[in-house]
């Protein structure tokens, strides 16, 4: 995929509080970035820098205040109807609470296939059977989310995004809400997904993992992307002072 973002601005109204007037927060401030022809893009940067806001726009969940986004030369639409069609062609996995708690893992997987993509129940079950086996989740298919571990929940969520055969995936800090031992199983699954050829954009704080799976890394800070670079170059030969101090801080902990 090739991603071009031009002059992207995202402002949110800030509700009035304690007698103070309502204001506007500028989260993305004329953000621009251009990638090469790549399989995976990883967004890193300090908290509050705008990574998740950018990802939500790329995933078609939010409409920016202004600016343009294009994947492979195709501009993202801005009306909800077209955006919904776009979202049906991609998959998104959030930090947590992806799964619907009133449905079993299996029903969670079937729901988009049956209700969004028009498969019959039988065809949908056939579609998810093999992936459930491959990712060692078949034995958990009958369980409700509350009976699954955090790692299992995220893996089912990733699978739900995968089985609709999306053009590309979006991950918004998929391991941030997990205990360390569960992070590994989720990251491993994302690495497998990549090895199988899937394209994705990933927001993460896991620098070692970013280096492992990223074709290019975009550094998002203060609502802008000052640096986009191939992974090796980003970690080893980066002279931008903001990136250097960010890497020192994150790698030190």
């Amino acid at each position, binding site marked *: 995929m090739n991603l071009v973002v031009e002059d992207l601005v995202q402002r949110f109204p800030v509700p009035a509080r304690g007698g103070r007037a309502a204001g506007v927060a500028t989260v993305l401030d004329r953000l621009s970035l251009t990638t090469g022809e790549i399989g995976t893009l990883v967004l890193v940067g300090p908290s509050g820098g705008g990574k998740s806001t950018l990802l939500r726009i790329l995933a078609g969940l939010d409409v920016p205040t202004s600016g343009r986004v294009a994947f492979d030369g195709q501009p993202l639409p801005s009306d909800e109807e077209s955006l919904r069609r776009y*979202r049906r062609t991609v*998959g998104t996995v959030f930090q947590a609470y992806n799964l619907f708690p009133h449905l079993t893992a299996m029903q969670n997987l079937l729901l988009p296939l049956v209700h969004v993509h028009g498969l019959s129940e039988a065809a949908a079950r056939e579609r998810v059977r093999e992936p459930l086996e491959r990712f060692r989740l078949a034995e958990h298919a009958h369980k409700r989310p509350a009976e699954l571990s955090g790692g299992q929940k995220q893996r089912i969520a990733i699978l739900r995004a995968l089985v609709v055969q999306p053009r590309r995936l979006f991950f918004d800090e998929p391991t941030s809400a997990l205990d360390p031992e569960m992070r590994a199983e989720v990251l491993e699954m994302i690495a497998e997904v990549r090895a199988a050829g899937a394209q994705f954009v990933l927001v993460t704080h896991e620098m070692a993992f970013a280096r492992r799976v990223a074709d290019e890394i975009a550094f998002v800070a203060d609502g802008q992307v000052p640096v986009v670079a191939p992974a090796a170059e980003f970690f080893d030969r980066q002279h931008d002072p903001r990136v250097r101090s960010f890497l020192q801080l994150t790698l030190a902990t």
Partner: protein
Amino acid sequence: MPRWLAHVIVVAAFAAAVAAAFARVNYEWNWAAVWDYRQKFLQGWLVTVALSLAALAMSILIGGVTAVMLRSGRPLLEAAARVYVELIRGTPLLVQLLIGFYVVATAVGLENRYVAGVLLLSLFSGAYMAEIFRGGLDAIPKAQVDSGRAIGLTPWQLLRLVVLPQAVRLVLPAVAGQLVSLVKDSSLLSVIAISEFTLAAQEVNSFTYSTLESYLPLAAGYLLLTLPLSALARWLERRFRYETA
């Protein structure tokens, strides 16, 4: 101790206490006079059942629409729903029935007092339902909406497949309580001369001068309606139960 036995013991103890109270005041029972009017009781009870069922369905409908309006984000719709809810909840049903029937219904030419009564009762209960539903909808985390949108659900699918099934479980106990109240509130329809259960008891009382013999069957008749309603709610609660993740 099995649960049914506990219930039997509590009910028996309560009955004994009530019986002792009656024994102390030396009340002279006169069931024979009231028995002659059993047909009137039955008719009144059936009217109450019919009124309650109609108002029950309609108040859920009104509550649902109002709850959606309350959360619509459109100032005019929100204001209309809010004013309706607060006016209804802040004023006595008695006043609403009297003004609603003798002024509003008459003004618009609605003469059937049964239809007017059901409408007024539904509007009353619907305001409470609206707040219950709104609370249930608000309690669904935004992340659930995000997840639903992310897989490409339409707003209607999102409501039907994701939000409502979770909200129903949250609001069931409160809705059941409101429905029980509705059945009992229907007794006030006697003030606009609807021959329902309570009016029947009042009339029997005025014919026979047997106050308790008229009103005790009234209490029993309402319990006969409200207890199954509570049982149904508990059964539904069990059916919709699942752990939250």
